[in-house]
């Protein structure tokens, strides 16, 4: 037998033939199997289930206060008046507070999101205001700092500053925007809508002024509140019975003060609750 010839055959076997060119690798023709478009729809229908019949009892109110427990000195302003920052004639015209932690009377914490994780089956429908919500900015500060907005409501972005801003949103389920807001736009040329509810608030920033930050949370039900300057909140017309609330704050480690706060709403009455926020949870 001709040995070189034999070697050549073996070589071609080893390198090429075997299982085709690069067996199973880059150049193999893949199989393609089709998956029906609605493969998961059937299961989803089942999961959604029937709307539960309305429970008896009159709706109640959930109100309370988020209270910081422990010692925490107030945060210094983010920008002090006259500081040498970018666009200082606008951005440092006044003291701009550091809104990561705003504590009011009785150690109440402002800007805490309190909301139902999921729309209750027997709850009232979300009413989407026909009027737009005006999201403003002044002295390089978003107003409001924390916003819960019904899905479907138009948001118009205003600016009371003589410098350019841009509104850059970072939602999970919705499509984010990053759009320049003209200086002194009091009409609201930049407008957008959140079509889907989100599970947690997300950041809104301005790329021109890196310190500017706000939080948005679109929800598809009306059971929510952002705590006021003194940490107070009130959520009316909740169906009586047990509900699970989320208590979210930007400065909490992992962002949650309470992931699942189960509250039983009294029929026709007001259920009061003080939500404790230990300083150990703060991550500033």
């Amino acid at each position, binding site marked *: 037998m001709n040995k070189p010839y034999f*070697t050549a055959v073996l070589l071609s076997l080893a390198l090429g033939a075997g299982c085709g060119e690069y067996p199973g690798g880059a150049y193999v023709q893949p199989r393609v199997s089709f998956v029906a478009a609605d493969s998961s*729809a059937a299961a989803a229908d089942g999961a959604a289930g029937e709307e539960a019949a309305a429970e008896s009892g009159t709706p109640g109110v959930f109100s309370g206060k988020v209270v910081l427990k422990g010692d925490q000195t107030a945060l210094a302003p983010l920008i002090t008046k006259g500081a040498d920052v970018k666009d200082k004639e606008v951005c440092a015209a006044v003291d701009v507070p550091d809104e990561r932690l705003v504590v009011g009377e009785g150690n109440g914490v402002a800007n805490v999101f309190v909301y139902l994780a999921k729309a209750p089956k027997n709850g009232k429908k979300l009413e989407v205001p026909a009027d737009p919500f005006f999201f403003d900015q002044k002295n390089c500060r978003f107003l409001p700092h924390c916003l819960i907005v019904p899905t479907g409501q138009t948001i118009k972005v205003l600016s009371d500053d003589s410098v350019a801003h841009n509104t850059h949103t970072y939602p999970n389920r919705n499509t984010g925007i990053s759009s320049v807001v003209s200086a002194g736009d009091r009409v609201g040329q930049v407008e957008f809508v959140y079509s889907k509810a989100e599970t947690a608030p997300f950041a809104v920033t301005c790329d021109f002024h890196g310190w500017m930050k706000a939080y948005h949370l679109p929800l598809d039900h009306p059971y929510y509140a952002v705590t006021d300057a003194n940490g107070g909140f009130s959520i009316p017309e909740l169906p009586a019975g047990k509900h699970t609330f989320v208590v979210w704050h930007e400065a909490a480690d992992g962002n949650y003060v309470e992931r699942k706060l189960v509250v039983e709403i009294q029929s026709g009455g007001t259920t009061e609750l003080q939500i404790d926020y230990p300083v150990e949870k703060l991550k500033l």
Partner: protein
Amino acid sequence: MSLTPSWNRFLLLPMLTAVVAGGCSEYDSSFVYSERTTSLIPEAQDGFKSESEAAPAISGVKQLLDDRFGDPQDLKAWLKLPVEFGGTQSAVAEYSAVEGVATVKFSVEEGKSLPETASSVQVVSGALAGETLLISSWDPKTGQATLEGLPSKEIAAGDSCVIDGGTVMQSGRVLYMRHCSHCHGTSGDGAGPTAQYLNPRPRDYRHGIFKFTSTTDVSKASRDDIKRVLQYGIPGTYMPSFLLLTDSEIHALVEYVRFLSLRGEYERKLVNELAGDFSQKAVATRTEGGESRDAIVAELKEMLASDIVEAASSIGDGMAEDWTVSDTEEAVIVPSVARVPDSAESRRRGRELYLSKTLNCADCHGVDGAGNGPQTIAYEKNPITGEPYNEAGLHDVWDNLNQPRNLHTGIYRGGRRPIDLFARIHAGIKGSRMPSFKNTPHEDIWHVVNYVLSIPFEPEPGATGVPVAAPAAAAVAP
């Protein structure tokens, strides 16, 4: 062959081993799961095994993904996605099996036509779902096919099928592995073997975001956008032109890149649903806070069985809509006025706008357009995680440090046609910190375009490069 006998002795054994023991599996390529997926607790990644008939298995993120996208050897073509997988979607209109001969009549949706030839059909729904049947004769006029042999189960009218399906995907996969994967990676994660040597880094498709598009700020990339990048490359980067590929090859690649992008986006969005409560970090915080791990896992199990199934479906619907709409004319940026003719006056106005407080291009691109504005030396925090970046400057959603374009080079990654620059300003650069200026009057955008296109030829910064306008230009020079 010039191999000597002594060479032979050394080569024989390894070669024999290679032939006999080599097998095929070790060369299999695979899609990798994102780091975000693997940062979830194992139960969220892998789901729950079936414990009894009453308690069927519950899919985790990996299974949900694999069921709809498969792996590189066995790709799944999820018909919900706006990807042209190849083949003709059809439905069974009539089926009969007489004396051992099975005939099927196929129908297609209105406006679509039956293929000229047909050799096989894949059944997608019904009793035979997942099976491929061979066709022995085919009448393209009536859609009547005779099958080879009898199928193992009955086919019913209304079952959906794909005739000769998957050809585009097959070709796209092979071409992608040959031309693209060494930079963009098998999964389209921008982490192929070559990627680490490149700056800028190759695109990681998995956000479903492409930077340079002709579509509006809230739209995805259109097919034409991906095609343009494939054909002409991205100047100033390592992305070359693939103009030598045929139209059908480019088409197959565009569809395969869409497929990988959709896979990545789907994975990302699924993980988004779970990461807040079930990432390893979140679970660690929760257990420290007093919750029991068992209770957390039980909660996860319930969520995977109901909410996530629903979410998986609506994520798919949402992506299908976004990518479909983005491929229509509606999504394309069309200036409301024709390009303002280039003139010294227009360039001067453009420079005025460039420096203005309203547009403030200079904030990033610098007063003289060298890409060195004050924003490039600012230390910033990641807007999603809140963690400070290690380096000063502008970061994109891929966490890459971006250099605002130095406008003196005359190299424009998104294309150098005036309309390309218009689109860059109008829509911004997606995923980056370049925002959309869509509310700026279109005439003004054209002035900026005229100015930007003149910068490489400026005799000195701010001079518009047209001698006639020298006095006017001097007035606005810094």
